[in-house]
């Protein structure tokens, strides 16, 4: 796992804030901790421009309680996957689109918008994906507080119990 360690060493040297926040999980897998927007963007640009991570496989959105997590999976020529994590608060879930560097991410970032309610700035224009046109605003089905049992698909409305009213809506 020398190649993986070399990548980590080089990144830590360039970005001291990554120290102890990046590790080799197993062969061909590197995971980072959650980075804030500014840190994340510096690292992903460096990985793309200088370190040969030419391909972005996809983005996984996660619900981190008060925050939203975004895991960008990047691959280099040796097939090493680096899972670079970004975090943004649910109260202000703004992130920048990475489609400028990685056009392959377009549809995955649209999913973050529809399913997690992230505000991805700089996404190219195009049809929304994957929720249908009549989907009620403010309903983000992959957030943990959104429960499928409260959604009425005939009227396309979300009806949580009264004491649960604020949950699931943003």
């Amino acid at each position, binding site marked *: 796992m020398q190649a993986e360690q070399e990548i980590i060493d080089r990144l830590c040297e360039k970005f001291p804030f990554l120290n102890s926040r990046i590790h080799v999980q197993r062969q061909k897998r590197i995971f980072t901790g959650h980075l804030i927007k500014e840190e994340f963007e510096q690292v992903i640009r460096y990985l793309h421009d200088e370190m040969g991570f030419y391909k972005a*496989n996809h983005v*996984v959105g*996660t619900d981190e309680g008060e925050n939203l997590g975004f895991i960008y999976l990047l691959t280099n020529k040796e097939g090493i996957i680096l899972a670079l994590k970004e975090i943004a608060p649910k109260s202000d879930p703004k992130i920048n689109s990475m489609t400028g560097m990685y056009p*392959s991410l377009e549809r995955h970032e649209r999913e973050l918008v529809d399913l997690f309610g992230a505000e991805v700035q700089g996404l190219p224009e195009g049809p*929304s*994906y994957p929720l249908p046109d009549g989907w009620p605003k403010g309903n983000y089905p992959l957030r943990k507080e959104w429960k*499928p049992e409260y959604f009425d698909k005939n009227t396309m409305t979300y009806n949580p119990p009264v004491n649960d009213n604020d949950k699931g809506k943003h």
Partner: protein
Amino acid sequence: MDENKERMESRVNAENKESREGTEGMDSKENRKNQERNRVVIPIGPQHPSLKEPSSFTITLEGEKVVDAVVGIGYVHRGLEKACESRTYIQNLYLIERVCGICSHTHSTAFCQGIEELAGITIPRRAAYIRVIVAELERLHSHLLWLGVAAHEIGFDTLFMYSWRDREKVLDILAEICGNRVNYGINTIGGVRRDIDSEMMQNILKMADYLQEQLKYYLDLVMTDQTLSARLVGIGKLSYEEALKFGVVGPVARAAGIMDDIRIIEPYAAYGEIPVKPVTDTHADVFGRTVVRIKEMLESLEIIRFSVKNIPDGDIAVKAPKRVPAGEVISRTEAPRGENIHYIRSNGTDMPDRVRVRAPSQANWQGMRHMLQGQYLADVPITIAAIDPCYSCTDRAIIVNSESSTEVMDWQGLRQYSIDWYKKRGIDVSQVKIPERKLYV
């Protein structure tokens, strides 16, 4: 073949030159206005634009040439990932298997090996070999299905019927091994659920011999038939650089010369012990994708023969815990359509915290707009079909009847329904006599 190829390439080059000259000549503002006035926007779909699955294509045409295409997908998104979060790992195994009807095994393999990695389980070698055999049989039937669909799209229905006839042989073997033609249910967390006995092994080898001859014939056909090359060469171009840029995977990437095969890059199951030869091509068009898929099937037969010959004796599964330790994992397999990635996060309970499936079609859609631009409208269906799009993969669907009631209709019931449907709209076809027939009794 070489003569054919040269002829086709010169045709394509001449056309490109023509279109370039056409564009250069249109420099003045008035010409550009005229050009825009001549554009026609055609919405195609979402009902069955190419394959029998829903997606919409808004195609902008100039004459018969496509100048832009907007791809709309997502019609069969059913929230499968959300459903996974409220089910146990074993229940999810069956749910995940139904992500796709064609490549169900690759999804359940990716899911199982992810859970096994989280739980620290090593599966028995025999189980790993059985996973490989079923995976390659799945690749065979998926590619044969594709070959038939592609042939149908260009009006070559004889090849479509030949190819689907041969696919039945593979499905028969899969049914013999797994008890089912699709959704095999062979994988379980910790190994596989059914063993393959020596009689089945012999049947697999017999099928492989039969298929070998057929596939050689198809390869020869594709390489020499003038009609096929006229319809396939130079269509749906996606160069090496463009394929890298759009992040396409599987046969679409390999047809552009990119060696992208998870079986080789990151061997899983028993692929580490089995020689897998990479299949690539440099045509970077629909023709290349066809050649790659046929050659891959021949390679699959070699892998199956090797596995049957070298499969070790022993158990087929180990016991797996119901609760999985907290952690996260990225599991990859090579599906018939390309790289399939599952991300699973566990929280120490018997249900996952997050499951994310990135099926290969989701990656391949990205280059579609580019592939369609500059094509003739008539080539749109084959260009779409050539990425072997799997809508259910992309949308991660389970097919459910969303109406309030579900009923299974027989032939007569279906006929009555259509008669009533037309009657309501003022057309009475109830007096039309059709001969009695029995269908699927």
